[in-house]
């Protein structure tokens, strides 16, 4: 057997280009349906688990999918905004706990999630180091964020400008890291969590600046009328919230009208959930309430249908490839007729010569299968992340 394998191996190595093409073709035919299945199955489990753990989401009427993907997986496309009063209303109804979500800003590629401390307890998130955010301007980072940015409690992360061309737009805010979450193997690992008020400060709805009553700010004051002071742009605005300037931060207007992307509603019981959902059935309402698991199931149904089409196509291509490979092998046998005749003339035994030819096929199939297995393993390990990246960004 060793001699047979040796001769077969030498043949394949000598014709390495032909072998590589054959191995790659067969490997792809084996891998594609299996890998696709692994990706879809794992992604389904991954997506469904997160969705199933989130009972209800309230957002502006529009795409339920966009609302669910933004709220659960922090996708970059955010839904139309709703008022903070929606969260207050849900909480005041006594039917559910309301966790505000404002997922709009980013720090590099990491989403900044404006929320409340209830978010951590709701998702059972524990801290690897540090503590929850306690002050305005503090943040808590997920495990992957801490790893990729190399930050720990006491360090700082900076929010990204929404656009460099919008001078009146969102300016970067330097946020102090108060804690790092333990790895949860969910999108939370990639997020930066801040209090919703800090998110509003990033947006510019709240700000901190030099005390205009102090003499050093006098040059910037345009007019004073009772408590109303009008200043020009020379007044220093803070892009970092520190203990020294914390008190200068304030919000203008009614917080009830401040924006959220969604409200995560955690009903007290099943009955409360039904009542709460009933309140959003009114056609005239500008808000909607969705069950994330239903939305994600619909998404998965679509993915499954696409997968079935792809698998059917791969099977057809696979059959064509196998037929082509068989043809290549038969033509190869014809081209090697003289070589086989030589072996027969010298005294090569029929089983050995046949085994050698068979061994070439077996080695190619084993190589292809092994590579397909390795690729499937890689897909199993990294695939869901990749497909979520495609679906959610």
């Amino acid at each position, binding site marked *: 057997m060793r*001699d*047979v394998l*040796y*001769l077969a191996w*030498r*043949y394949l*190595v*000598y*014709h390495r280009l032909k072998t590589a093409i054959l191995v790659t073709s067969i490997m792809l035919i084996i891998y594609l349906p299996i890998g696709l299945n692994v990706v879809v199955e794992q992604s389904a489990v991954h997506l469904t688990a997160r969705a199933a753990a989130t009972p209800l989401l309230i957002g502006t009427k529009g795409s339920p999918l966009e609302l669910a993907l933004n709220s659960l997986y922090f996708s970059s496309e955010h839904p139309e905004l709703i008022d903070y009063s929606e969260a207050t209303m849900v909480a005041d109804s006594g039917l559910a706990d309301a966790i505000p979500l404002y997922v709009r800003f980013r720090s590099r590629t990491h989403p900044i999630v404006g929320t409340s401390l209830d978010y951590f307890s709701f998702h059972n998130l524990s801290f690897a180091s540090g503590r929850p955010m306690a002050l305005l301007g503090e943040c808590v980072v997920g495990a992957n964020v801490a790893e990729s940015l190399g930050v720990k409690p006491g360090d700082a992360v900076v929010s990204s400008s929404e656009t460099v061309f919008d001078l009146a737009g969102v300016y970067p805010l330097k946020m102090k890291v108060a804690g790092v979450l333990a790895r949860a193997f969910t999108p939370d690992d990639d997020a930066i969590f801040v209090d919703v008020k800090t998110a509003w400060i990033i947006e510019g709805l709240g700000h901190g600046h030099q005390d205009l009553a102090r003499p050093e700010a006098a040059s910037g004051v345009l007019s004073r009328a009772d408590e109303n002071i009008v200043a020009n742009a020379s007044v220093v605005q803070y892009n970092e919230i520190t203990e020294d300037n914390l008190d200068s931060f304030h919000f203008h207007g009614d917080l009830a009208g401040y924006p959220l992307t969604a409200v995560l509603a955690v009903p007290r019981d099943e009955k409360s959930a039904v009542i709460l959902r009933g309140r959003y059935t009114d056609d005239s309402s500008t808000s909607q309430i969705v069950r994330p698991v239903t939305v994600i199931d619909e998404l998965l149904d679509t993915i499954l249908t696409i997968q079935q089409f792809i698998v059917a196509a791969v099977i057809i291509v696979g059959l064509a490839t196998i037929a082509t490979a068989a043809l290549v092998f038969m033509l190869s046998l014809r081209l090697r007729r*003289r*070589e086989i005749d*030589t*072996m*027969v*003339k*010298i*005294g*090569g*035994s*029929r089983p*050995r*010569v046949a085994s*050698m030819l068979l061994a070439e096929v077996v080695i190619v199939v084993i190589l292809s299968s092994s590579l397909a297995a390795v690729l499937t393993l890689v897909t199993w390990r990294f695939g869901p992340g990749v497909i979520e990246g495609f679906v959610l960004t």
Partner: protein
Amino acid sequence: MIRIGDLLFSYDEGDFSLEIPQLNVAHGETVAIVGPSGSGKTTLLNMIAGTATPHSGQVTTNGYAISELHDAARRDFRIANIGLVFQEFELLEYLNVLDNILLPYRINRTLHLDTSVRERAEAIAERVGIGDKLARYANQLSQGEKQRVAVIRALVVQPPLLLADEPTGNLDPLNKERVLDILLQYATDNAATLVTVTHDHDILHRFQRVIDFKDFYAYGAGQRPENVAGPT
């Protein structure tokens, strides 16, 4: 070594036919077979080697009635007892020189490849001047080198019988002499029998006996001559 009696052979298609009433080759004898193209010289070698079987008559090689053995037994017999050399060398392109030489040991379990075989192969290669080319592939060798590799492949199993089909047909005069030297030296050193088919009359003087195939009956259907005669 070789005894042929009342041999009759023809192909299923075509009108070629070969008849050999009697042909004997002694142990250690070196024989050259000459004759016109298509007269059946190569067919005779094939029957001695057992790659073709006669319709009737007996072919006995090294004491075995090879024409009566079944296919697997003929192959086993051939690999261990007969060294074959071809005009076109018939080296495997995907094997290097050493692997080509050792090929008989890998294609039939009758032979066992071990260190002594490798050492023997390397020693013969060294002796015939290709010791430094063992790692090369066939396409990296000259014609003369290729034939020397093919000859070593035939010699490495130390067979008592060598059958060579126009072994010098594709070689220049220098390499022709060199290859003949190797074959004849082996036959002398090992008391082996050498039967060579050749068109080259310049080399006939180096053989102990020359058989001219025109003495046998190679004929088309209906052309059989009246008189039967042939060397023994």
